């Protein structure tokens, strides 16, 4: 019986090639998108899951309440981890780490910058890592280093790295004690090396008794089934017992939420990547659904052709169940073919998709989970697509069908129209959303950043750079290629130093303002092209050591009327000498951060140079390389363009933009396929009518209008539904950003008109043939 079903199904599909091609193409695109998105979603959902203690690992975080503005801070004091492990029975292990940092590692003359963490003892007790050579005991020796396989290879090639000596930042010498596997893509910890804290180091030693300076991350492994509410209370109590810290309440943040729910707003965990995971899961389903809708629509539209077959089969004794099975067979065969094609497409597309989403996704066809998912997709798609046609087609009354008294297809017009409208709704929604995302990114990129990032080059400072800064600056300026040079404690594209506002006369009680801090040398405003609103920049005179500059946001937040000349108590007393315009250093989607700037003419984190306008960047880089290699010989020359660093702030948004763009184009393409199919069926059905109208004098244009009108009506209905829906959804999305666009209504008008034109084109292309056919032919089909 099944062989017969398959045979008939196969022949039917073969006979109506147009129908088959449209459906297979649509389903292939749909399934391809779904698989790609699912791979991405799976990768996102399995972040850190390879950790054996996944369910018991937490990060210790604080909500710091600055006058009812809660700031969630991951930075902890160095001794906290030890104190927690010793005092709380619910904590099995606690570990403290630095932020990921970059150090210059050298083996003989092979010097490479590599990223990693300094960690305390129990790091490998909490976090599971695969040791290729050596073991976790490597952390016991403060002069040891643990490398990843890739890092080891970079220094030692195929030679055994164990016990080889590496130099860190041209000073400390460490011994390679173990080699671990590279962290997988979806690991929060990404590193080339791990080193133990060196508690013998005087700086570290001092920090071990320092409970205010908070610059480290603290992680704990709790006992299974730990009471986290109690933990939060206990941690807060322990922290407060080491000094005044009433504004902070500490809590443990489970590993399962680190990646997907990383955002905090006013102390509340608001979400993060999970929103995009959800969004794209929905998009995957929608695209597949659009392809299924094509199948439903086209199957019922051509029901007239199948009605006779159904009638004959029923007369010959087939029951309804058998007919339903037969129609399911057809949708199953189609889906299966589409699935095979989709797998090929995924294999071909994965490299570029990986490049786009910056991951290393792969199809694991050896895993049973792959086949389970694949089988579910095929079955579900075949069922969703085939359900309605199977039930509808099998319901025909054989007597009526064979007598020709049934006008089949009529009953399906309304459902078909509803399905087409929903396709259009999705299309309009996706196009509008794409445009809005694009506008939002563009709007933010066009924002006045308060400085000019173009033509600015940053080079990380080293002790050598700081020592030779004056001569470096002189040589660069003398070249005529660089117009201005300064140095700062951190790059202009980031804030590394968060602090409370200084004290000043008239400061309202209980004001806790969070500000960013920046130490700069002279020529800060000149080099960055920051506008000075009042006062002047640092002058390089001794008075600079007690001078302070504020930005406009700081002046506003501190409610200062005449800031220049005011005394600020911040450790020592400073005099405000200038007010700069706001510089966007953190997220460009957020309001400007209040900043205070103090003078530091001897050490820095970053040297920044402005290239004279009109000078090619390459020429400037060549000069910089020569000069920096001369005065900073121990470190490989590296540089960053400020504008490029700035662009990195848009990575997530641009990814979202690109993905919605691609998926909306594909969704619309599938819609158009379905539309083309429907239009050609409509025309087939109205072939005689078109002939009659032509005989009566209808022109080709009049016929085009006649056929298109039916579809255009559907577009209009879809538009009426989609426009407010999009407005509501996208307005919600935009509320994630403080600095955002308002959605203009003309956008919908443009999208609506574009959709109408697209429909007109697709329908016309199909209609034109019928419209120019000699009516003699259509009337002869009687």
């Amino acid at each position, binding site marked *: 019986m099944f062989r017969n079903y398959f045979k008939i199904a196969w022949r039917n599909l073969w006979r109506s090639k147009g129908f088959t091609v449209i459906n297979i193409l649509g389903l292939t695109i749909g399934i391809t998108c779904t698989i790609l998105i699912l791979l991405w979603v799976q990768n996102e959902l399995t972040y850190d899951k390879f950790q054996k203690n996944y369910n018991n690992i937490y990060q210790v975080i604080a909500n710091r309440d600055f006058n009812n503005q809660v700031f969630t801070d991951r930075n902890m004091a160095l001794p906290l981890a030890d104190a927690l492990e010793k005092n709380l029975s619910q904590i099995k292990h606690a570990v403290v780490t630095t932020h990921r940092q970059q150090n210059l590692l050298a083996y003989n003359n092979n010097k490479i910058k590599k990223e990693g963490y300094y960690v305390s003892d129990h790091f490998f007790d909490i976090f599971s890592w695969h040791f290729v050579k050596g073991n976790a005991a490597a952390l016991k020796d403060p002069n040891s280093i643990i490398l990843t396989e890739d890092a080891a290879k970079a220094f030692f090639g195929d030679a055994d790295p164990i016990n080889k000596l590496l130099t860190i930042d041209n000073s400390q010498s460490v011994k390679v004690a173990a080699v671990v596997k590279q962290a997988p893509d979806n690991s929060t910890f990404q590193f080339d090396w791990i080193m133990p804290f060196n508690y013998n180091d005087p700086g570290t030693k001092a920090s071990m008794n320092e409970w205010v300076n908070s610059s480290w991350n603290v992680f704990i492994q709790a006992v299974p089934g730990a009471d986290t509410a109690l933990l939060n209370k206990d941690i807060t109590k322990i922290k407060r017992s080491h000094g005044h810290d009433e504004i902070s309440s500490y809590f443990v943040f489970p590993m399962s939420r680190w990646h997907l729910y990383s955002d905090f707003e006013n102390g509340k965990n608001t979400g993060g990547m999970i929103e995009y995971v959800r969004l794209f899961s929905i998009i995957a389903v929608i695209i597949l659904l659009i392809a299924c809708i094509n199948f439903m629509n086209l199957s019922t539209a051509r029901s007239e052709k199948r009605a006779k077959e159904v009638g004959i089969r029923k007369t010959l004794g087939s029951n309804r169940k058998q007919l339903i099975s037969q129609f399911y067979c057809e949708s199953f065969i189609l889906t299966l073919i589409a699935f095979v094609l989709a797998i090929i497409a995924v294999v071909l597309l994965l490299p570029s998709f990986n490049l786009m989403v910056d991951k290393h996704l792969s199809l694991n066809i050896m895993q049973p989970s792959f086949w389970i998912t694949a089988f579910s997709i095929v079955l579900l798609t075949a069922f969703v697509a085939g359900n309605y046609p199977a039930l509808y087609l099998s319901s025909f009354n054989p007597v009526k069908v064979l007598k020709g008294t049934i006008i089949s297809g009529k009953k399906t017009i309304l459902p078909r129209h509803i399905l087409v409208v929903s396709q259009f709704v999705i299309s309009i929604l996706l196009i509008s959303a794409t445009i809005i995302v694009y506008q939002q990114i563009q709007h933010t990129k066009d924002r006045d950043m308060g400085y000019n990032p173009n033509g600015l080059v940053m080079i990380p400072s080293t002790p050598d750079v700081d020592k030779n800064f004056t001569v470096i600056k002189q040589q660069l300026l003398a070249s005529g290629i660089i117009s201005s040079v300064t140095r700062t404690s951190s790059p202009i594209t980031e804030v590394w130093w968060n602090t409370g506002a200084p004290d000043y006369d008239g400061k309202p009680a209980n004001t806790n303002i969070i500000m960013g801090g920046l130490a700069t040398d002279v020529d800060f405003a000149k080099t960055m092209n920051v506008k000075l609103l009042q006062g002047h920049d640092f002058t390089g005179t001794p008075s600079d050591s007690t001078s302070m500059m504020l930005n406009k946001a700081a002046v506003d937040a501190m409610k200062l009327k005449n800031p220049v000349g005011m005394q600020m108590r911040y450790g020592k007393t400073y005099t405000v000498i200038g007010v700069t315009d706001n510089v966007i250093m953190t997220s460009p989607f957020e309001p400007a951060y209040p900043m205070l700037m103090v003078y530091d003419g001897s050490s820095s984190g970053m040297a920044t140079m402005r290239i004279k306008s009109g000078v090619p960047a390459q020429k400037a880089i060549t000069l910089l390389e020569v000069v920096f290699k001369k005065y900073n010989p121990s470190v490989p020359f590296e540089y960053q363009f400020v504008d490029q660093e700035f662009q990195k702030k848009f990575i997530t948004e641009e990814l979202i933009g690109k993905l919605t763009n691609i998926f909306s184009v594909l969704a619309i393409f599938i819609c158009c396929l379905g539309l083309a199919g429907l239009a050609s069926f409509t025309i087939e059905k109205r072939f005689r009518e078109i002939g009659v109208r032509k*005989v009566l004098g209808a*022109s080709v244009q009049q016929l085009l209008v006649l056929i298109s009108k039916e579809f255009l009506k559907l577009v209009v209905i879809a538009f009426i539904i989609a426009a407010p829906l999009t407005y509501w959804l996208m307005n919600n999305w935009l509320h994630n950003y403080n600095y955002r666009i308002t959605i203009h209504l003309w956008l919908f008008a443009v999208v609506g008109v574009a959709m109408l034109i697209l429909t007109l084109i697709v329908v016309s292309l199909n209609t034109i043939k019928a419209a120019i056919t*000699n009516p003699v032919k259509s009337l002869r089909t009687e």
Partner: protein
Amino acid sequence: MIKISDLEKVYRTEEVETVALNKLSFEVKDGEFVAVMGPSGCGKSTLLNILGLLDDPDAGSFLFNQIEVAHFNERKRADLRKHNIGFVFQSFNLIDELTVFENVELPLIYTGVKTAERKKRVEEVLDKVQIMHRRNHYPQQLSGGQQQRVAVARAVVNHPKLILADEPTGNLDSNNGNEVMQLLTELNEQGTTIVMVTHSEHDARYSHRIIRMLDGQTVTENILI
């Protein structure tokens, strides 16, 4: 009105060449009512299609109102057709989705007649074929005879000079058939030229002249009046 000479039309498929019209010549005068008879496949329908400017001949001349139209392009043919020729088909060819009124109105829309004028003319002609009371019905709600009366109404609503009827009574019983023939006769008496293809000797007798065809050629002509 119509003068055709040496008209030829050949249908070719890959293997077979069928001569539909073989150097056919005749003339139809203004106000004449001509019946064309002959067995199936003798070329009657082809002739009617060419006369109706739906198809063009391979060779020969076709003068319509003294104008050579044999090689008119599609647009010119359509233009000439919608102003001068009305069609009545055996299978009525009414549009199912449109009411009686709307069906009859169609040719007027295509010739650009204004709404008010259209209404007047459609009602006039529906009155004439006595189907006014069914103006808001759909074709499938009517009997065959009523449907053909609507088709006739549609054919004449534009006041064409020529009506081409292709077995207008072929799908009707004798009562309804006679009614339709009566209608055509009346139209002819009012001055409309009619060319009718038929198998029915009875119907042919309503005409002034019968042209009998065989294998794409005229065999005989009987003049009845």
